[in-house]
């Protein structure tokens, strides 16, 4: 930030522009804290992944953990499931987020109340929200099964979390439920930031609502959609609590994502070394995914000359 009012360099401006040491002193506490709590554990995870660490000591075993992991029959399935889970959940969050934002942006009575009402899934502790869903998914007493039975769509009680396919999609729905409010609010803010005269000009030219949405709203909020999609992907990929509380990765592994799998291996089975290898795979795959995402984004931006 440069002062344009004064028009000449005061001491303060020189100071602000040059004082690396002071700037770093201000950052140092946060940097050291994160190096200790996130940086060191990351390095340690890499080191552990080359050991057979468990409850009884550890020794260096080279690439054995990685060989074991790559030869594991189940692992590719877990990786595939994680990406499918993420893709499905993030897509739904984006679609629902856009629809939600459009609805909350419409000039209707009660609009500000609706904007508050949409927040609770995000505000409330995840564990509590999941307990609510645990109850909804209950076969005998839950409302979903109950309503479907009343409508005659189900013959008898159906426990959504007891069968492989339904359990998988149930965890997706709950994850979407928790993630949608935040996405909605960000899209809403983006829509409010679109210059009003664009719409007015289009309206004067006789453009329909749908045309205005497609040709003005969507392109204008695209940067926010793209950012949210990446952030949301990272959070969803790393999501632990929802699946753990709803199914603990079951039934028979149907909802075991890479995070759940890592947790089970490392914490529940005390295989710290092998668990660290799996944790490292989460980090690597997520980094690769993000890089590819950003790379593709750049390509698309260049092609359409969006800046």
């Amino acid at each position, binding site marked *: 930030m440069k002062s344009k009012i004064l028009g000449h360099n005061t001491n303060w401006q020189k100071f602000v522009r040059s004082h*690396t040491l002071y*700037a*770093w002193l201000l950052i140092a506490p946060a940097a050291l804290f994160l190096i200790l709590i996130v940086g060191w554990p990351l390095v340690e995870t890499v080191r552990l992944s080359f050991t057979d660490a468990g409850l009884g000591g550890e020794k260096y075993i080279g690439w054995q953990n990685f060989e074991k992991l790559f030869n594991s029959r189940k692992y590719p399935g877990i990786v595939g499931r994680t990406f499918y889970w993420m893709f499905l959940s993030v897509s739904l969050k984006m679609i629902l987020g856009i629809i939600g934002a459009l609805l909350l942006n419409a000039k209707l009575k009660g609009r500000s109340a609706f904007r508050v009402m949409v927040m609770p899934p995000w505000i409330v502790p995840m564990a509590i929200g999941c*307990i609510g869903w645990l109850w909804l998914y209950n076969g005998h007493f839950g409302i979903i099964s109950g309503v479907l*039975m*009343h409508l005659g769509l189900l013959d008898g009680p159906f426990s959504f979390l007891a069968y492989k396919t339904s359990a998988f999609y149930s965890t997706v729905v709950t994850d979407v439920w928790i993630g949608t409010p935040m996405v909605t*609010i960000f899209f809403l803010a983006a829509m409010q930031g679109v210059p009003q005269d664009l719409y007015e000009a289009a309206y004067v030219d006789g453009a329909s609502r749908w045309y205005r949405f497609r040709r003005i709203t969507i392109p204008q909020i695209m940067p926010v959609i793209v950012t949210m999609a990446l952030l949301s992907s990272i959070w969803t990929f790393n999501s632990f609590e929802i699946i753990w509380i709803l199914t603990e990765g079951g039934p028979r592994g149907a909802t075991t994502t890479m995070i759940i799998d890592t947790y089970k291996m490392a914490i529940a089975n005390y295989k710290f070394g092998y668990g660290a290898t799996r944790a490292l795979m989460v980090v690597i795959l997520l980094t690769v995914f993000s890089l590819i995402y950003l790379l593709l984004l750049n390509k698309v931006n260049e092609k359409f000359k969006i800046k």
Partner: protein
Amino acid sequence: MGRFNIFQKILLYIAIAVFMTFILLPFFEMFMASLRPLEHLFRSPYQFWSDDMSLQAYSDIWVTVPMLGRYIFNSVFLATVTTMLCMSFVIPSAYSYARFSFKGKRISLGLFLGVNMFAGAVLLIPLYKLLRTFGFLNTYAAMFVPGAAFLVPTGIWLLKAYLEKIPIELEESAYIDGASRMYILRRVVLPLAVPGLIVVAVATFIGAYAQQFLFAITFNQKREFMPLPAGIFEFIGYQTVKWNQMMAASLVGIIPVLVIFLFLQKYLVEGLTKGALKQ
């Protein structure tokens, strides 16, 4: 411009109703379940309305799980300490990023934001060792130290955007008048940044309140330090699950954060989105 006619309005309200049903259904059902006696809950098929509803569960919860009050207190306490710890790291660094240009600015900011890539769940094993070394296991610190760390990057990002909007001229004139650097930060910048600080603190508090489960079940075994998201599972007994009471306790447990949110929601929604959209 393009007003809605009555038909379109009705359609929009229906759509909003469907959307809100999805968002609020779990809370509604939790409330309904909390009103029913336990025997009634296990009546199949599902009944929407019945005549034996009462608030009994709301007084029973304190007997079934005597520590419940403590768990809720722990949750609020942990979230508060986490927020304070987090803010003490966030404020100086956000100011630094907002004001100064220095070597390594871009890359260090990138590294900070890169922390968002890692979930606590990935780093549990080394974190466990680390907390054991410091003697933090089975204490409050086992939960608020890692909890704060993962909230710092977002805090810096949000507050930086806010601080950038405060005109630099004010600091300049204070500097010319001979104020020290720390004085400028404490007495000139921070008072002006109060609305931004509120937004970041509330967002951090909500995050800290919402994400207590993982660190609580992994790093703490002591019941007296347990936050609600871990303690709530005591309603699941060996024989039966006291669903009605679990729902009642859940709803009671979210009151603190709901109150804070309702008071500050205007700042929060505005501040979060404005801060985030700048970049």
